[in-house]
């Protein structure tokens, strides 16, 4: 495996943050 741990970390962080932000987005939608 040609490991690129930093890039892997960034992509996993992007995925995780997106879904976490989805929860905040749902809360914002509920307040509109």
């Amino acid at each position, binding site marked *: 495996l040609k490991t690129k741990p930093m*890039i892997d970390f960034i992509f996993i962080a992007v*995925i995780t943050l*997106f*879904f*976490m932000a*989805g929860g905040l*987005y*749902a809360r914002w939608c*509920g307040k*509109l």
Partner: protein
Amino acid sequence: MQTSGWLQLALFVVALAAITKPMGLYLTQVLDARGRTWFDPVLKPLERLTYWLMGVRAGQEHDWRQYTWAMLLFSLVSCVFTYAILRLQNYLPLNPQGLGALTPHLAFNTAVSFTTNTNWQSYGGESTMSYLSQMVALAIHNFTSAATGIAIAAAVVRGIARHSTRLLGNFWVDLVRVTYYLLLPICLVLAVFYVSQGMIQNFLPYTKAKLVESYTIQVQKTDDKGQPVTTNVAVMVQAPKLDQNGQPLMTNGVAVMVDVPQLDAKGQPVMTNVAVMVDQKVEEQTIVQGPMASQVAIKMLGTNGGGYVNANAAHPFENPTPLSNFLQMLSIFAIGSGLTYYLGRMTKNQAHGWSVWGAMMTLFLAGTLLCWWAEAKGNPIHQQLGIAAADGNLEGKEVRFGIFNSALFATVTTDASCGAVNSMHDSFTALGGFVPLFNMQLGEIIIGGVGAGLYGMLVFVVLAVFIAGLMVGRTPEYLGKKIQSFEVKMAMLSLLILCLTILGFAAWASVSQWGLAGLNNNGPHGLSEILYAYSSAVGNNGSAFAGLNANTPWYDTTLGIAMLFGRFLMIVPIMAMAGSLAQKKLIPASTGTFPVSGGTFVVLLLGTVLLVGALNFLPVLTLGPIVEHFLMLQGKLF
């Protein structure tokens, strides 16, 4: 447009109408936690065991926020799981070809693609994915992403059908029941049927076959260290060929073009480095093997669309016969069509369910006929070159299926959010290619992706009812519920996300070096390729105008983000709308209540879809396929 095509179209519509009610009735049982099916004796213990293992309290329902949060959490975990498998596939079993790990950006794109039910593929399946990746990373998502879409649709329908409650069902129960009772049994039957048609299903290494007649290809020359060898050459551009008088030479009204060196400001030739190519004799063919039938069954039924092989359903293994082709198209629409019946059943207004189905079928027939007509009419420039006009545009089409079945498949796969292809959409005529592009930009609400099509169409239903209310000066009502500002805000938010994400990313790529570098065609067709890619990603379709090379860090990443936006940022406001509708009290129907069934409603709904949904894209479509069509008529291709 041959008679056989008309007969096949009629057969397809009749078959779809025939399965809609049984599928809808079955969905009613599956989507009821206490519903009964024929599979209860076998699957009920498995269902209970699954809840026990997952710690799910099956009797406890969720409000819209809890339901949405459960869906987001499940998608997060499954997406990261897939990313890990793809990055580690060379260490994992069931990899007889010894295929390497995917690059990080390709793994990100693919993990997101399958989590969102898009199945956009920036890779060729047979040359990239191990059997384990195909089955564990990809096929599982084909089940769970489809089940997620159906679960969301069920929650939205419950929001419409219920009143004075906050509860919309239990996401985990819906996910498990749809997977166990609906998708797995049908896929088991379909997979066995596909094997009977000649589709492969094995774990064998790829077969090597010696060619009867060898041929030569050009490959990039490499040095001793394996690095590509390049050389410096002049950049050539096309210019009109001039006659003795210095006038452009014309043939049939078209200027004859020749290659000439491009000059810089000083009149010197512009030079560039290009790869040195060498001839390579090919004497063997590699024939793909693997667990294909099981993957294709769910790929179509779950409107996922990701091909086991790069040629997708144009490959004779992946679509062996006319019957398999017909069944694959029918299975793309089967669940989405049944969900319209489920809507009618749950809201106790079956005429409403059939009216929504009727609106969808009107758009489906319009798209199919336009695409078929454009492809059957063909390209006049081909005809000037002596290619028989009667054959239509056969470029990029599998001759086993011909013009009609290619046009029908292209329409079905983009009406739904499937994205499987049995012909290459990039090779369609401008108007033929316009149809799949436009279908995706409408939000894939014509039958649509499993679940996603229905909840997308219900957004338009809410807007249609709202517009009707504005026109007659009454508070809009939908099935006994008042439609108020919150519902309209949520409906518009989901539509704005669709068009802003498509247009925003397409505009960015169209003016960026990284975006233009992926193009194989210039002019309006190049714009269509970029637009198609982002429409496909945001619409969670997955088909492509494959002249675009999208397996680059920028395209993989931006398309991945577009897929996430197109799936989840649209679901959240739609769930909020459903949650709000569920809490409302029922108002008795009066003489002023706008009926949500019948011809007037269907026309209003179609008008809303076309005016509210489609007008957003008219300017960019004019710059892409529409201008390309008129330029084709003038003899110019891209």
